Structure formats: structure tokens, C-alpha cells
């Protein structure tokens, strides 16, 4: 069962912040975040393995709340290069660490 991402799309100006949410109807062991630019392969951003853990990548960080079965991706002071579609991936089966991806959130950063 695929995770649900929100919002579906975000439009920002350079320097603004954004939050992308990912929720699952089942228990989570891991959450993956990937970014895909148009016509390119998805690129790994981070994987979160423990509840409440936050990780960072450049000015992008994420949190993982096991109890709420949710993860959020935080993009701070967004840059033009952040534009793309962000996918969260949650475990296919308990502890498998193979991601089942959501439908994605399209992020557009304008100058």
C-alpha cells in the first residue's frame, strides 16, 4: 500500500521554505526520500530508520514519527536546484527496507 504525500504541488520563490508530508496506513520501519528532475532518474536524498530521527542533506532535512506513521521533508531557503518531484518511499513489508513510493510532490522554485 503506497504512502500518501501532501501537498501534490508546491510553488515557491527562491529562499522560501517548504514542507512535504508523507503518511502511511501501516507501521513504518524506514522512510526513504528521493528527488527526480524531469526526464531523469530519481536521486537518493536520505533514509530515516528510527522514530523521531532527523537527518539532513544540504538545507534539506527530514523527520520520522513512528507513532504517527508519518515523515516530513523540510526544505529551507530553497534554491532553484531544488525544483523537481519529491517521492517518499515506505517499507513494502515490515522491515524489508524496499521502498514503496508515493505519487510524489512537485516542487517548483522560481527566481
Amino acid at each position, binding site marked *: 500500500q*503506497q504512502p500518501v504525500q501532501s501537498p501534490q504541488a508546491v510553488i515557491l520563490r527562491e529562499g522560501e521554505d517548504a514542507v512535504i508530508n508523507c503518511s502511511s496506513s501501516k507501521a513504518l520501519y*524506514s522512510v*526513504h526520500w*528521493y528527488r527526480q528532475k524531469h526526464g*531523469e*532518474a*530519481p*536521486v*537518493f536524498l536520505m*533514509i530515516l*530508520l528510527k522514530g523521531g530521527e532527523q537527518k539532513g542533506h544540504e538545507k534539506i532535512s527530514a523527520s520520522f514519527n513512528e507513532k504517527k506513521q508519518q515523515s516530513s521533508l523540510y526544505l529551507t531557503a530553497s534554491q532553484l536546484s531544488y525544483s523537481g518531484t519529491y*517521492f517518499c*518511499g515506505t517499507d*513494502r513489508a515490515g*522491515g*524489508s*527496507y*524496499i*521502498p*514503496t*513510493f*508515493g*505519487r*510524489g510532490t512537485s516542487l517548483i522554485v522560481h527566481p
Partner: protein
Amino acid sequence: GAGVSQTPSNKVTEKGKYVELRCDPISGHTALYWYRQSLGQGPEFLIYFQGTGAADDSGLPNDRFFAVRPEGSVSTLKIQRTERGDSAVYLCASSLTGPGALGANVLTFGAGSRLTVL
């Protein structure tokens, strides 16, 4: 190789034909995954190999789809009697040690093979 290589990058075929899509993973990566991505959707899991064996093929939509990895490196996804609904980008990914190894399951994706069934 330096990255995951997929061939062909584009394939146009007619309904009912047989298609093979090839994936060459990063050298030394034991785990290999096939996903497919339709327009506006996230990647949909198809199958996962650990070494030569298919450890999880539960994502294959039906028996027209089959994948092999005979020597634990290159993999081929085979689609028989193609249908228009099979049109999608087929993504291959590899990872160093595969799922279950904490923190090791970072997937590196190839650029994909775009399949169009007319």
C-alpha cells in the same frame, strides 16, 4: 560501471510483441530492483533480486512479466504479449547489500527505459 545503465533508452513496439529491457547495475552491488513509472506517478515496485535469485517478485503485475539475473549482475526484464497499458518508464536500481542491512539500502536508479506500446 560508474552508474546503473539501462538499454534501450526508448522502445516503441506494437501490441502483442515481446520486449526485453536490460539493466547493468553498479559493479559490486548485490541487490537489483525493477520499478515502473507511469506519467504523474511514483515508481511502482516490480521485483527485487539478491544475487541471482528473485527474492521478491510480488510486484509483477501478471505472468506476462518475467525477469532474470543469471550471473548476479546484469538483469533482463521480459514482457510477453505487450499491451498498451504496459507503456511506462521501466526503472532499474541497485544497492550495495540489499534491504535488511541497516542504512545500506540506498537505491541508485538508472535513467530508465521508456516503453511505448502502440
